């Protein structure tokens, strides 16, 4: 009986602990367009939540100081109401309801992460509230037939397929052998689908296909298999945990692989945390400051990065850049719609075709941005051990030549 009680208590505690949010909005008061946003200011996404908020704030200040938004011959300024969704999808959905039905917000900005965007999208869709989001890349967001959801970023399945294509190209056009390990979450699994597509397209073979748990901090088993089976490419996606764990264990276990492609390298501050061990890792990124896209508000990536650093004291990750771009999209749509009617703004958003410092933006019927390719950068270190991310693909923006194959650990 006592043991039963212990188990019951323990299991109930675990159930509560496992049951565990983000969004944005607008209404027009006086000369202000009030946008609302639920952002993860606390909880496990709080770092990226803050990057998102900083991106939004930076764009609001810049647009307002440069003349605001002109609708019907009148000038309006942006303002955002933020709520903290505590990194919890249920809370995010509640906050979206609250923003729309209580605060009367008519236009929204997205939260951070695919999971939270997924929680909010049904709510905004129900009320017909246009939402421009910048941090939900999961493909499943764009296959549900949502009419009011627009994402400025490229969908998750495109993150790493450039890497596979590059590997095939470097292999003389012949198929490659791929080892992959992906976390079991909406985003990483979509990246995996992209790799499966790329493998099929190029005739490449997937020889290791591992799934990683959410509480991942050890992937030695996958790496032992990689050591034995010697694939041509190793692909890892598991947010910052995945990137940090992979680099640590690849270096410790001296795993030699000709190409290593990952996501979330910049968010994980790979080169800072691992230094030279992270050298040669290829990383997918939505944006890099060295890209040469231009707009009237932020000029280009380099200027954006410099201004951002002046204001917030750190180099902007792509999460901030894409969040800033979301505001530029809203401004453009309001002006073209020349109205605050939600349907007209929605139609104007759907017809968006513009260039921002972050990249070209043009929405497919599903809401994803189809006009902005992903970039791949490679971590490159100099003799003193200081490392930098250099864009290596697509070739148009490459600032360095891809180093391939990665030198063996015994030769480093």
């Amino acid at each position, binding site marked *: 009986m*006592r*043991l039963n*009680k*212990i*188990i019951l*208590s*323990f299991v109930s*505690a*675990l159930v*509560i*602990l496992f049951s565990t949010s983000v969004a944005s909005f607008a209404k027009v008061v006086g000369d202000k367009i009030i946008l609302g946003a639920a952002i993860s200011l*606390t*909880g*496990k*996404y*709080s*770092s*990226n939540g803050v990057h998102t908020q900083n991106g939004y704030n930076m764009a609001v200040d810049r647009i307002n100081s440069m003349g605001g938004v002109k609708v019907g011959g009148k000038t309006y300024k942006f303002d955002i109401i933020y709520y903290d969704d505590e*990194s919890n999808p249920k809370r995010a959905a509640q906050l979206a309801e609250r923003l729309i039905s209580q605060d009367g917000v008519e236009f929204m900005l997205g939260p951070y992460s695919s999971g939270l965007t997924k929680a909010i999208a049904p709510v905004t869709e129900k009320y017909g509230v246009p939402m421009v989001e910048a941090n939900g890349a999961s493909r499943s967001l764009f296959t549900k037939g949502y009419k009011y959801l627009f994402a400025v970023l490229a969908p998750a399945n495109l993150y790493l397929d450039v890497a596979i294509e590059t590997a095939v190209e470097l292999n003389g056009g012949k198929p490659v052998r791929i080892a992959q*390990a992906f976390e*079991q979450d909406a985003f990483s699994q979509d990246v995996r689908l992209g790799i499966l597509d790329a493998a099929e397209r190029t005739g490449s073979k997937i020889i290791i296909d*591992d*799934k*990683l*748990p959410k*509480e*991942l*901090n*050890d*992937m*030695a*088993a*996958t790496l*032992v*298999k990689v*050591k*034995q089976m010697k694939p041509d490419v190793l692909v890892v996606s598991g*947010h*910052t*945990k995945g990137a*940090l*764990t992979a680099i*640590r*264990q690849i270096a*410790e*276990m*001296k795993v030699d692989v000709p190409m290593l492609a990952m996501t979330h390298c910049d968010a*994980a*501050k790979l080169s800072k*945390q*691992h*230094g030279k061990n992270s050298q040669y890792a290829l990383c997918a990124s939505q944006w890099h400051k060295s890209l040469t896209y231009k707009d009237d508000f932020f000029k280009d990536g380099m200027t954006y990065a410099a201004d951002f650093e002046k204001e917030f004291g750190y180099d902007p990750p792509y999460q901030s850049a894409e969040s800033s771009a979301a505001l530029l999209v809203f401004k453009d749509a309001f002006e073209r719609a020349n109205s605050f009617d939600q349907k007209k703004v929605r139609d104007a958003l759907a017809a968006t075709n513009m260039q921002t410092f972050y990249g070209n933006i043009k929405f497919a019927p599903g809401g994803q941005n189809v006009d902005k390719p992903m970039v791949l950068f490679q971590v490159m270190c100099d003799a003193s051990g200081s490392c930098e991310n250099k864009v290596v693909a697509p070739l148009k923006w490459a600032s360095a030549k891809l180093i391939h194959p990665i030198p063996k650990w015994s030769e480093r």
Partner: protein
Amino acid sequence: MDFLVFQYPMITLQACLDGILLGVLFALIAYGMALQWGVMNIINIAQGDLVILGGYIAYFMYLYGIHPAWGVIVAPVIMYFVGIAIYKLVINKVVDRDLFISILATFGISILFMQLMNFAFGADVVLANSGYGTTMLFDNNVVLPNSKIFSAFISIVFAVCLVIYMKKSKLGRAIRATAQNARAAKILGVDTEKVYAATFGINAALCGVAGALISITFTIHPYMGLPYTIRSFMIVIVAGLGNLPGVAMSGMGLGVFEEFADYILGTEFRIGSVFLLLVLILVYRRFKLSRKREYLK
């Protein structure tokens, strides 16, 4: 299902060694849990969070240029006092109460710790680099990161020291007496309140050591404590309270089991397999107990 692990003897050996090194570390955390469970009848859901807090101490030392290995000395000292503070503030109010109350209280502490760590240290995943290198065996077919070997070695050192301390010291004897019969110990002049506080402090210190080792070997994050709580619970359930060799064996067994489950079922079922094993063992124990009962009838 993937049986690669049995096809290559080197992979089997690798899995066993990885499992044992990992298991020793788990055993250290579980020993702390067994100790306070045995003495105070408290199941500490915040065990994993204390581990992570210990990890952050080592991480911050690393950040300020001190080698993180010193964390195994500094973290337990700080964590001992954190443990005492938690005891004085919360645990002493629930120590004689229903087990469910103590689980709720420590569950509350767990949530509080997660949020406070998130608030204080940020939600980024971090690690401390020891720069210890790698040991290669059998023509480079078996690789053991030295940080894992270091972790296992330090865990053993701490466990041995603790056993000696429990046997020889006055406080150790008082702790053991309280575990056997708190009332009798009190009558015989043992200050059980002090014993409880020290026990909770020692448990927190052990978590501190384990945390420092985890920051050197793996990664830490404010929300990563729970799997360590589950593993300790599992180890203690299997080994029983106050059975140190049992805890060590059960810890290593669990480590090896996890590694094999990882190879055979896939990494995604790693923690799931621990749960499954927990259920199986509980069912088995019940079955054994019911047979004993029949026999007695």
